[in-house]
């Protein structure tokens, strides 16, 4: 017996995608494959931005799509499919990043290794990118999530709020504090050279 679509009209702007979602909700795997194909690049890119590891990003993207498939019958379309998917990818990526961070610090503690090997100086851009990565890693988890999603989602506070399921004012506060912290630690020379 075919179930009626639970995606309200207008929940997703693209009618073709709405049709695919409705078919996938009824168990149509080919429709789901099309959804995966149209969203996989963004999902992978988001996981890669957070995890900085191609292998982990690929695994997280796969896990997220499988999670989407199992949760799809309950998708009511309150947000767009893309936002919903990004929320799942972002959560899984941040969780994994946190687990990896703990694991690395435990391994370092077990083996009495130094904090991190100093990177070989290549060029100014590489050094600056490494420096920024360290600074971002030093932010609180919430600030890190907000900063990451803000630059990934085209600088839209509204979108970040939807993806992270966080009130817009909270997003703005985290963003403000993260910017202040990053700017305070950002080297003077970097500002003067660009």
């Amino acid at each position, binding site marked *: 017996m075919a179930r009626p679509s639970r995606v309200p009209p207008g929940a997703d702007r693209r009618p073709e995608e709405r049709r695919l979602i409705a078919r996938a909700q009824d168990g149509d795997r080919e429709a*789901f494959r099309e959804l995966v194909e149209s969203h996989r690049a963004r999902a992978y890119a988001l996981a890669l*931005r957070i995890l900085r590891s191609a292998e982990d990003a*690929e695994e997280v993207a796969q*896990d997220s799509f499988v999670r989407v*498939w199992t949760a799809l019958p309950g998708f009511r379309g309150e947000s767009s499919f893309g936002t919903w998917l990004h929320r799942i990818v972002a959560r899984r990526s941040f969780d994994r990043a946190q*687990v990896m961070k703990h694991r690395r610090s435990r391994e370092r503690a077990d083996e009495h290794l130094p904090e991190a090997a100093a990177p070989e100086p290549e060029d100014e851009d590489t050094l600056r990118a490494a420096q920024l990565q360290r600074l971002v890693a030093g932010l609180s988890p919430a600030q890190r999530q907000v900063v990451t999603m803000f*630059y990934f989602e085209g600088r839209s506070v509204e979108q970040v709020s939807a993806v992270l399921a966080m009130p817009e004012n909270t997003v703005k506060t985290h963003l*403000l504090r993260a910017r202040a912290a*990053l700017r305070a630690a950002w080297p003077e020379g970097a500002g003067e050279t*660009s």
Partner: protein
Amino acid sequence: MNCLAFERLLDVGEPDALPAAALAHARGCGSCARSLARSRSLERALERHFASALAPAPGLEPTLARITDHVMARIEAAEARGVRWLALPDALPWWVRAAAEPAVVLASVVAALLLWRGDALLAAVRAWLPATAAAPSRWMAWAEGSALADAGSALARTLLPGPGEHWGVTLGLLLGVAPLFALLALPFWRAGERLVDAVGAAAR
């Protein structure tokens, strides 16, 4: 505009979209000018670090194709086995999840009991067997003795065709009764759907 307000603006807004008053302040204040330059540099570095300028790189297509193939394979494998939880990504390895399944736990308990006190359990079953085997005949005797039996035979006499009836009459009666069975089955079907939905919602 003072330096504190300027710093606040840098934290809140975009360094490339500051109001004219703020820019005028930065032109006259060395410290704020350096802050602005640093902010712009940081903004560009953040954009490079996070922005999703995902050009269709030639090396990326195999990765993306692999994502689709693995996702679909996992979905199909799990559905073929009829177990949705196998498709679910989980931090725990599959053998831990399998061991936590209620059916597996129950089977392990039964196996452990059989190994531990198998002889005593078998003796108990042997002792109960005659009583259990006699149960259906006792129920039948109780049913025959009660008013249920009379009501049942009255209903059968009314609905079932007699031995000499034409086959057309039998077929007609069957066709007449079939929708009643369908109507009776519908509430059970709905109850089953509600049960599955509730279990699915709880699992999600």
